[in-house]
């Protein structure tokens, strides 16, 4: 059995990059640790320290229950809405080599229509499950409305953990993947860039 990760980059609908993802960072391992060590006992716990996107230490939960009012838990969300660049799939212009301790892109391109900015779109997911091969994908499209070309050299995934108690939500955002592209991709004005992460399982 094999597990593989892939990054696919499309420019104006045409594939321009396909590479093996070598991108997970230690925050993902720590998040899985938090979830795995949960006892499912109905009690809040299983905290693990991670590095948030500001570079500070933060605790995330493996299991969480809120108090009165609205309450709930979102362990590791990625499905950010359009216009949000603080989590989900993100892109940047930096080329600093990836390390396991990365907590942010080297130089994230912000959402917007100003100089050097890209308009962040919604995410889409797909999945296919078979007895010999399966995959899941998550994609996001970025549109250049800045008036000038923008070069993308790095892509990543920022997760959001939300804990809600007494109708108040607290968020922790943490990088779980970062890849520096082997070849930079130039997004022309009014062009679109689509980044897809794929995780595959196969028995061969």
């Amino acid at each position, binding site marked *: *059995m094999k*597990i*593989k990760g892939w990054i696919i980059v499309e420019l104006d609908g045409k594939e321009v990059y396909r590479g093996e993802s*070598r991108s*997970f960072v*230690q925050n*993902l*391992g*720590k998040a*899985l*640790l938090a*979830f*795995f*060590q*949960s*006892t*499912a006992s*109905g009690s809040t716990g*299983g905290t693990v320290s991670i590095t948030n996107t500001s570079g500070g230490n933060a605790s995330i939960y*493996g*299991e*969480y*229950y*809120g*108090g*009165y*009012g*609205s*309450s*709930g*838990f*979102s*362990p*590791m*969300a*990625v*499905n*950010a*809405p359009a216009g949000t660049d603080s*989590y989900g799939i993100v892109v940047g212009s930096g080329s600093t080599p990836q*390390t*396991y301790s990365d907590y942010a892109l080297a130089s994230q391109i912000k959402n917007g229509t100003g100089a050097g900015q890209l308009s962040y779109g919604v995410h889409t997911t797909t*999945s296919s*499950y*078979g*007895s*010999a*091969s*399966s*995959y*899941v994908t*998550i994609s996001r499209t970025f549109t250049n409305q800045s008036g000038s070309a923008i070069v993308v050299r790095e892509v990543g995934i920022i997760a*959001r953990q*939300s*804990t*809600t108690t007494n109708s108040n939500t607290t*968020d922790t955002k943490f990088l779980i993947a970062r890849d520096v592209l082997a070849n930079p991709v130039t997004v022309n004005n009014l062009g679109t860039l689509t980044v897809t992460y794929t*995780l595959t*399982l196969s*028995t061969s």
Partner: protein
Amino acid sequence: MSQIYEVKDPQDPYEPLKGWIDIEVRDREGKVVQKGRHKMHSFTNNFLAVLLTMLSSAGGATSTTGSVTGDSGSATTIYGSLISGGNGFGGTPIALNAPAGTDSFGILVGSGTTAFSLTQFSLATKISNGTGSGQMSYGISSVTDLGVNTSVSPPVYQIQIVRAFSNLTSSAITINEVGLEAKNYWAATVNVNFLIARDILSTSYSVPPNGSATVAITIGVTVG
């Protein structure tokens, strides 16, 4: 079994998730009578499905559902996030830290040898918890952070799950398969057990009467 195992596969160093199963069998005097190591080949579709369900959440005040095949073989709804208007809502997506005496999640062992398929939802023949014929007493699980192993390239973040199984019957019991069953638990809403990994061992392990087997699964996340 506290040794830190090095998780790497020189044939495919960039495989994003990999693991090893270590088994140690002891007799009634505590002497090691058999041990071995096996590379995991085994994550199931359920593992992809629970990851996708979590990632599909937008966070904040949203609930997200997905589907796995529960250990009874039926498609079952799980949550990737949950929020509700009331006290005590929340949960955990993929718990493995089962208490002693529980054979419905955590590391499980079995005697079956049916070939692996991504669609499997249970061990072929689970050895149930107990002291009756053909049963083993399931110990408490432990989940340990082994941190990043930087002595290998690329580095690997390692998590180790360990569980002991005691044979309190009067006959030897053979272990041929090992599984990881997770619990997706959301208070007052969902309580689903589902298989996320199953491995058929290349060697059978015979646990003598009053002996024990300790199973350690070391999962590595390639992080560079």
